[in-house]
C-alpha cells in the first residue's frame, strides 16, 4: 500500500540510480536462488525436508497474499483449499496411478474452479462477514473429507508412496523433492509477479483501496474479485498437492482450522501485500511452532502466540512489508542527492 508506484516514477527520472537499484535487485535475486540451489547439499536430509515444507507453505501463503493482501478480501478458509489440492493429488496418485508431477496441473485447475465458485457469493460480503464465509470452508472441509470416505479414505487417510528421483541425477528423494518444490515456487513467484505488477494487479489493488473509485474508472469489480479468488486458491491448492507428495500421507486431521489460521498469520508476519513476504511467512509457519516447543514443553502455544505479538508490534506491516518501503526510501533519498531535479512526491 506504500507508494511504490510513486517511487518507481522518481526512479525513472534518474537512470544511473535506477540502474544501480535494479542491478542490486537482480544480484540479490540471483544470489538467493543460488543459495537455495546449493543449500540442500550442505544440509542433512531432515533439514532439506523442512525447507521443502517452508517452500510449500510459501506457495500457499502467496496465494493468500494475492487475495487478502492485494485484493483486500480476507480469507479464513485457505486451509480448506490446501486440503482440496492435497486430496486431488492423493486420489489421482492412489486411485488412478497418475505420476506425481502430473497431479499439479489438475490441482491448480480444481483449486481455481473452486475458488471462482466461492468467489461469486463472496462478492456480497465484506470484512467479518467474508471472514465467516471463508471460515465455513475451513470447517466444512474436514467434515466433507471424512464423509466421502470411499474417495478420500475417510479417517484412515491415504498413504502415498514417495516418488523416486530420476535415475542418474545422483539425488535422493528428499533433495529431489526439494528441487521440485523450488521450481514450483519460482514458477509461482513469476506468475504472481506477472499478474500483480500488471494491469490485473493494479485492478486488484484499486478494488482493495477504493472500490467505488475503481468501479467508476471502469474496472469490472466482480470479475476481478472473482479472478483474485480463483487465482489465490489455485496457488494454495498446488501447494497442497505438493505437500501430499512430500509428506506421503493425507488425512482430514491434517487440514484443521488451525492450518487456515496459520496461513493468515504467516501472511501477516511476512507482509500481506508482498510476494517476498510469502517466503518469510513460510519460514514463520514452519519453524516458530517448533522453536516454541523447544522453549516451553508445557505451554508451546503460549510462546507461539507471543511470537505473533512481537512480530506485529515491531513490524505491523510484516517483515517484507516494513523492509521494502525502507529500502525504497533509501534509494529515493539517494536520488534526492542526485543532480537530476526530482518531480513528484517523495516515496513514502
Amino acid at each position, binding site marked *: 500500500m506504500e507508494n511504490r508506484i510513486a517511487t518507481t516514477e522518481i526512479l525513472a527520472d534518474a537512470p544511473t540510480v535506477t540502474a544501480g537499484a535494479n542491478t542490486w535487485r537482480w544480484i540479490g535475486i540471483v544470489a538467493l536462488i543460488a543459495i537455495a540451489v546449493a543449500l540442500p547439499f550442505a544440509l542433512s536430509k531432515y533439514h532439506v525436508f523442512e525447507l521443502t515444507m517452508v517452500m510449500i507453505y510459501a506457495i500457499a501463503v502467496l496465494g493468500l497474499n494475492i487475495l487478502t493482501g492485494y485484493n483486500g478480501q480476507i480469507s479464513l478458509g485457505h486451509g480448506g483449499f490446501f486440503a482440496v489440492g492435497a486430496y486431488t493429488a492423493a486420489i489421482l496418485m492412489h486411485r488412478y496411478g497418475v505420476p506425481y508431477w502430473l497431479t499439479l496441473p489438475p490441482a491448480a485447475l480444481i483449486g481455481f474452479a473452486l475458488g471462482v465458485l466461492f468467489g461469486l457469493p463472496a462478492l456480497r460480503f465484506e470484512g467479518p462477514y467474508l471472514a465467516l464465509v471463508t471460515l465455513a470452508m475451513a470447517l466444512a472441509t474436514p467434515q466433507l473429507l471424512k464423509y466421502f470416505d470411499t474417495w478420500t479414505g475417510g479417517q484412515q487417510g491415504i498413504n502415498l508412496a514417495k516418488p523416486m528421483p530420476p535415475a542418474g541425477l545422483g539425488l535422493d528423494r528428499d533433495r529431489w523433492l526439494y528441487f521440485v518444490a523450488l521450481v514450483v515456487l519460482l514458477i509461482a513467484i513469476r506468475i504472481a509477479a506477472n499478474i500483480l505488477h500488471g494491469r490485473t494487479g493494479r485492478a486488484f489493488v484499486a478494488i482493495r483501496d477504493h472500490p467505488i473509485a475503481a468501479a467508476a474508472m471502469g474496472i469490472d469489480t466482480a470479475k476481478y474479485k472473482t479472478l483474485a479468488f480463483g487465482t489465490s486458491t489455485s496457488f494454495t491448492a498446488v501447494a497442497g498437492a505438493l505437500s501430499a507428495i512430500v509428506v506421503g500421507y493425507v488425512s482430514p486431521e491434517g487440514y484443521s482450522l488451525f492450518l487456515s489460521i496459520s496461513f493468515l498469520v504467516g501472511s501477516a508476519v511476512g507482509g500481506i501485500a508482498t510476494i517476498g513476504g510469502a517466503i518469510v511467512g513460510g519460514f514463520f509457519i514452519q519453524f516458530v511452532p517448533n522453536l516454541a516447543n523447544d522453549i516451553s514443553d508445557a505451554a508451546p502455544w503460549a510462546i507461539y502466540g507471543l511470537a505473533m*505479538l512481537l512480530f*506485529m508490534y515491531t513490524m505491523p506491516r510484516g517483515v517484507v512489508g516494513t523492509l521494502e518501503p525502507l529500502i525504497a526510501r533509501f534509494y529515493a533519498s539517494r536520488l534526492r542527492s542526485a543532480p537530476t531535479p526530482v518531480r513528484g512526491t517523495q516515496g513514502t
Partner: protein
Amino acid sequence: MHQLLQQIFSGLAAGAIYASVALALVMIYRATDLVNFAQGEMAMFSTYIAWTLVNAGLPFWLAFLITLAVSFAGGMVIERVVIRPVENAPVLAAVVVTIGLLLIFNSVAGWIYSYTVQDFPSPFPDRPVFGALMTTRDLGVIGVTLLMLVLLFAFFRFTPIGLAMRAAAQNPTSARLCGIRVGRMLAIGWGLAAVIGATAGVMVAPVLFLDPNMMGGVLIYAFAGALLGGITSPVGAVVGGLIVGVTENLVGTYLIASQLKLTVAFALIILVLVFRPNGLFGTAIIRRV
C-alpha cells in the same frame, strides 16, 4: 412432534450459550471495530479464576463478583497493553494479535490448570421444566443472557458513557474534539466485553464442564451467530446465537447425513447472509466517495 419440540428447546439452550459469547464479540466490535478472536479463551480463563475462588471456599456469588471485577480490570489492561500498539496498524495486524492472545490464554490455562475436565457449580438448580424439554439451569442461562442484552442496550442508548463510547468508535477524531478520552473508551469497551465473557463462561461451565478447550467450539458458533444477527447489533447477537443453536440441532436431527451437521448449518447461515449481507439486524455500511 415431541422430538421437534425437544430439539428446538435444547437448541435454544445451546443458542443462549452462543448468544452470550456473541454479545461480548459485538461489544468489542462496537467499541473498537475489531473482532476479538480471543474472546472465548478470555471467558474460559475468567471462569477458571472463578473456579479457583470457589474451590478456595468462597461462596459462589462472592467468587462471581470478584471474577467480574478482575475480568473488567484484565480486559482494560489487555486493551491498553496488548491491543494499543496495533491500534493504528493495519487491521490484519490487530487480528493476528487477537489470535496470538487466543493461543496464549489457551496454553497458559492448560499449563496452570491441566487439561482434566472439571466440575463447576451452578447457581441454578438442575430441575426439569416443561416436561423434561428443558432444565431450570437452561432457563437460567437464557435469562442471564437476556438480562445482559437489556443492560447492554440500555448502556449504549441511555448512559453518557455509552454514548461517548459509540462516538469514540465511530469517529475518534471528532470524539476527541468533544473532549472524549478515546483511549479510555476503548479500554472500558474491552473491560465490559471481558465482563460479559466472564458471565458467559461462568454460566456455561456447569453445562459444558470446565476445561481449557471449553470455548473453542462455542466461539465458532458465537461468531456465526453474531454475524448472522449483525455484528453491530446486540439484539442481533442474541437472536443470531439462538437461531444458530436451533438450526444446528434441527439440522443434526433431520439431516440424513448427520456427520455433515456443521457443514450444512453453516451453509444455511451463509444462505441467509447472502440475502442480508449485513446480518439480520445489522446496519449497512454506507460508503461515501
